[in-house]
């Protein structure tokens, strides 16, 4: 499969290309009161109102610090679904992984972020945590 390799802090995460609609630079996010805590708000994407999620918050990591390298990945779980934006610290490159480069690891049941991972990919010296986009975005 082909994935985009992104960075959150020091860790590498992978998102399958098929989910990605576009990648844009960081822009003003309008806060939405009383939304789920991992949603930072909404942005204006060429006339459309698109919700933006903080991947860090969703995965239980430290909160975002926005830098010039911060990007928003516009994700569409399915062709017909509404787009959702994911904030990442850095976007690296497109990587192709073979099936046997990917391992599934069993997490402890208490770790509720386990379902967000679709496996660990080995790429050279690095380990890439491949994200389960449908689980992250939710229905």
């Amino acid at each position: 499969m082909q994935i985009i390799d992104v960075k959150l802090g020091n860790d590498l995460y992978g998102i399958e290309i098929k989910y990605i609609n576009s990648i844009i630079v960081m822009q003003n996010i309008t806060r939405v009161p009383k939304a789920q805590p991992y949603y930072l708000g909404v942005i204006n994407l060429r006339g459309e109102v698109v919700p933006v999620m903080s991947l860090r918050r969703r995965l239980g990591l430290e909160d975002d610090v926005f830098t010039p390298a911060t990007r928003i990945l516009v994700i569409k779980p399915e062709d017909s679904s509404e787009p959702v934006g994911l904030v990442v610290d850095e976007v690296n490159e497109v990587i192709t992984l073979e099936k046997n480069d990917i391992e599934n690891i069993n997490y402890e049941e208490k770790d509720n972020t386990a379902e967000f991972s679709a496996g660990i990919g080995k790429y050279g010296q690095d380990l890439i945590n491949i994200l389960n986009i449908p689980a992250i975005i939710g229905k």
Partner: protein
Amino acid sequence: MDVSQYLDIFIEESKEHLQSLNEHILILEKEPENEETINEIFRAAHSLKGMAGTMGYQKMQHLTHDMENVFSEIRNGKMKVTSDLIDVLFKGLDALENYLANIQTDGTEGDQEYTDIIDALKEILDKGLGKSTAPSEKVSAQKVTTAVPENVGKNKFKALKLEDHEKKAIAKATSLNLDVVGMTIYIREDCVLKGARAFMINKVLEEHGEIIKLYPGAQDLEDEKFDFDFSAFIITKETPENLINYVMAVSEVKEVVADYVRLEESELNSYLTALRQEEGGFSAAKTENKDSSKEGTQNHQKQASKPIANRSVRVDIEKLDVLMNLVSELIIAKNSIVSYSSAFDQQANVDFFDQIEYLERITSNLHESVMKVRMVPIETVVNRFPRMIRDLSKTLGKEMELYMTGEDTELDRTVIDEIGDPLMHLLRNAADHGLESREERISLGKNPVGSIYLNAYQDGNNVVIEVKDDGRGIDIENVKKVAIERGVITPEQAEKMSEREIIDILFMPSFSTSKKVSDISGRGVGLDVVKTKIEALGGEVEAKSKLHEGTTFIIRLPLTLAIMQALMVKLSSEKYALPLGNIQTVELVGKNEIKVVNNTEVLNLRGTIIPIIRLGDILDCEKTEEQDELYVVVVKKGDRLAGLVVDELLGQYEIVIKSIGKHIKAHKIVSGATILGNGEIALILDVNSLI
């Protein structure tokens, strides 16, 4: 012939005819002698039959044909309308609707034969005409003796018994100096397509006169249910000899015999006098009908005004949506230009600003027009309710009447599609739970016939639909009890809850105080689905009730879906939009004018005490320094007022409503978002939920 391209049209028109039949049979039930209604029903059934036949849907065609036969007899005055008949007719309509639904889903009629309905129709037909129930394969409207006496020989037509109305027709023809010729036509035995041949012969005859009788009947001729001869009576100016020649010119005709048919003098005279009386009486009956129809129900008025040519076009909904989107984008672009234009010097560029104003006017008009195109009167949804109430009345054994007003109130097309089910549920609730049984009502001194009201009207930026009944009302204590029993609330909470809050419990999922679960309601899945659906449409629903007097459900729906006038305000550094429709006034009050009563902040606004709501707190905005003077936006919902405290007023704008999608589950006060002229996003607040 490939008819699949006509399938869409067929389905649309069939639906219309079936709806018309529903409405008119309802009228017929109340006014069995109504000529106009009977004719309308006959016309609709006849059209349906034709369409079904053309499309090859034989089951529909046959069922409609049977129903049409019955109507034909009623139209001729040979049968009376009975309530049994009405029931069977409604069953037949339901069967036809089922066929149509099947056709819509998989293109075929399905397997149901509905033989019970067909038999019932036949039985009624026979009983109505006083004929003993003789088993017969064909349902034929014409009754004639089947035996042909020998001495008539080839002139079989002479042996045919003429019906009353046929004799009347002959009498009329005679009075107009026309002749009636009876003929028997023999087709060659080696003819392959008898039906087609008979059709062609009849065509030829029609060119020279009017056929008033065919034996066997036209349908049977088409179905080839005859040997090799048939007879016809036609009103014509031609001589029998000429007619024989015309028919012999058609190929595969073996022989034709014809002769004048005349009524006996006495018979002729009696029919002529009857005719004259009828014509005099008929016009009197017609005017009577017209008067009664004028003072009749709205249904009747609609019926009378139908003949006025309906200049309308069917439009694909998708095209309307595209149009709507384009208008929205135009308004966003216009807003951008307006906001950039404010940077220019107004004095120096007078012409420019004139054009901007002109542009604003045009886009407003365009928006209004497109909205009007999408608006559909609620009538299309509610017109099936009278029938539903009638059926419910029979099923539940309670007498009830449905009174509807405001059927011409219009709603956006997308809302219309969704509003039908919730309304239907509320009506069924009213009928099933709200109205008491006949005995109970009498013992309470109420009218034994229960009343259900459906009222629709516009109120500001909303359309309000009320479903009201004069039944037993909501028993607040009972709801409290059941809620506590089910653990929904604790007894302590119950003490503190207001009546409104108790009633709101009914809207929770799986809540029902009904002890019986019936097919109609009581399973507890109804009211919460109603609420969810209505809220999904951007509206809200509430209930008001008085014990023993009745319950009213009030549904509020937004009038425009996409574009509206709003007051832009600022809360700390964030911009928000408040729909103008709710706003009464905007006040500047000193912070000391706000008092605290019972733990709530209130304001004395020129004599009225209104609650104060600190929007900034509700929305978790950054706290700002308290000013000495505060802006308070006074909003109104129904008859309730409230004052919203905001930090700054930015002005009135026309905004395009954008949905924030389903992923973010925000406070219900956030009803959408809008994109401002400079690209910023401002959230739209639905203040109704606060009041």
